[in-house]
């Protein structure tokens, strides 16, 4: 048995301390680890916890180191909680800056110098986005995203004109609740509200179930609330994570009464805010929103009142004007009508006067024309007749002259003929007339030789006796 000279424990711890100090003094390390066994002593400002590394996929612990935070570390943690809204507690994954030291009593110690806010924010944000994606994927009927905006069944509910009957989910007597109630009660317009309180814890991720239950209670109450108000009562600006849970988000999205939130989150909106009907920043803001909404309604009503007033006054004015216009029109038209008729009468008067005179004048002219005709023509007629008579006398004279000339001519013609055939003329031409027994004869038969005949030649009478008688052929004078 090899027994070396025993040394005092303190010697050993001093040596351990010496080695560790030599190795780690003045050095810090950024490490990623999970927090377990956390406890916080508010009075001292000490955080005690273990940093563990778990095997990926499984839950097996690969490494574990006890850690603590105080002084600067505690300050940084407080800042972390404020900024991220994430409480420093078990089961959170953090990026911390640590220093390694050894204490002779408490042993190996890792003290937190700083904590990386953005690492955790990133992680939380990642979780939140995953939850939102899941909500969208699994509830396509009730939740949609258009652009950057989420639309849910709840957000699509119409708000009643007046929000007066309220179901309030909050933690009992929290500062936020007080603020909310105070703001409502002291509204400057004197609006009255009916508030039913549905108290529950609104911090700590596990209390999501509580809020869910209160929503169910509200639904089951069967009261026609105008809105459900979810407000978070003041205190530490930490632990909003329950409002980012899938369950609560889905419940709010599907709730049949408009949900108004006032969770008090200063930075990003929680999933509940995104799913709710009307998210506001704080309980006071939620109350102000409700008052403004009601005021909006009252203003609309007052506007309608004004419209009614102004319009009815305008109506009166219009009607008065119309009446006045009609009055004027009737007066003017009646006067115009009378004036027109007067003019027309005057016109007719003039017409009758002028035309009657014109008629008389025309008749006079006509009469003169006709009488002129009657008077001038007879003289011409008499003169014509006289001419006719004169012509006739002339004719008579001429005709008688011609008449006598013709008659003379006829007689002269006969005279000529008789002169030609007169025996005197025949004898003159050498012919002789033979008388036998005292008678003129043309026949030689009765005359025989020895007969006594008398021959007349021109103006001489010859008495003779016939000696001989011979016949001639008588062709001597044939022509």
């Amino acid at each position, binding site marked *: 048995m090899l027994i070396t000279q025993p040394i005092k424990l303190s010697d050993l711890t001093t040596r351990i301390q010496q080695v560790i100090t030599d190795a780690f003094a003045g050095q810090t390390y950024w490490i990623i680890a999970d927090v377990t066994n956390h406890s916080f002593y508010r009075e001292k400002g000490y955080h005690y916890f273990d940093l563990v590394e778990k095997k990926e996929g499984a839950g097996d612990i690969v490494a574990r180191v006890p850690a603590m935070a105080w002084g600067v570390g505690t300050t940084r943690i407080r800042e972390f909680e404020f900024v991220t809204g994430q409480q420093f507690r078990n089961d959170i994954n953090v990026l911390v800056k640590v220093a390694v030291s050894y204490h002779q009593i408490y042993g190996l110690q890792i003290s937190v110098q700083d904590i990386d806010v953005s690492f955790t924010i990133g992680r939380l944000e990642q979780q939140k986005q995953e939850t939102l994606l899941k909500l969208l994927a699994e509830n396509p009927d009730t939740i949609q995203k258009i652009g950057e905006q989420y639309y849910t069944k709840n957000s699509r509910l119409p708000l009643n004109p007046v929000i007066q009957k309220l179901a309030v989910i909050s933690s009992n007597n929290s500062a936020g609740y007080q603020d909310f109630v105070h703001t409502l009660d002291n509204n400057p317009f004197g609006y009255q509200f009916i508030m039913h309180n549905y108290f529950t814890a609104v911090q700590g991720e596990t209390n999501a179930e509580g809020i869910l239950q209160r929503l169910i209670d509200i639904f089951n109450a069967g009261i026609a609330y105008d809105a459900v108000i979810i407000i978070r009562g003041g205190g530490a600006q930490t632990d909003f994570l329950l409002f980012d849970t899938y369950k609560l988000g889905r419940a709010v999205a599907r709730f049949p009464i408009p949900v108004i939130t006032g969770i008090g989150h200063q930075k990003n909106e929680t999933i509940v805010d995104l799913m709710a009907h009307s998210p506001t920043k704080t309980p006071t803001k939620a109350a102000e929103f409700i008052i403004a909404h009601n005021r909006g309604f009252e203003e609309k009503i007052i506007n309608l009142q004004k419209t009614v007033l102004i319009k009815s006054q305008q109506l009166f004015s219009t009607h008065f004007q119309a009446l006045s216009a009609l009055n004027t029109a009737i007066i003017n038209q009646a006067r115009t009508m009378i004036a027109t008729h007067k003019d027309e009468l005057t016109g007719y008067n003039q017409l009758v006067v002028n035309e009657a005179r014109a008629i008389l004048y025309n008749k006079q002219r006509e009469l003169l024309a006709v009488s002129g005709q009657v008077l001038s023509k007879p003289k011409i007629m008499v003169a014509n007749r006289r001419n006719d008579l004169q012509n006739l*006398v002339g004719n008579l004279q001429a005709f*008688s002259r011609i008449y006598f000339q013709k008659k003379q001519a006829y007689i002269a013609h006969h005279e000529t003929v008789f002169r030609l055939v007169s025996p005197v003329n025949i004898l003159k031409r050498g012919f002789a007339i033979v008388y036998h027994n005292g008678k003129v004869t043309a026949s030689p038969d009765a005359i025989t030789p020895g007969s006594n005949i008398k021959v007349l030649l021109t103006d001489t009478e010859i008495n003779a006796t016939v000696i001989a008688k011979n016949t001639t052929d008588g062709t001597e004078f044939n022509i």
Partner: protein
Amino acid sequence: MEQNLTYEAAYTELKTIAAEIENESVPVDILAEKVKRASFLIEFCQKKLRATEAEVTNIIKQMEQNT
């Protein structure tokens, strides 16, 4: 002279004698007689004509004076 002989009767008889002489062979023994008659008739007509003409001329002269 015949008492009631008119111009018209005389002139007709004259025209008949003229026609007879013109168309027929009047025996010489009555030719002279006929010619004698014709001569008488011609003279009668001429006298009547002249008398009438004188009368008519006279009347017409008066008419012209009146017109």
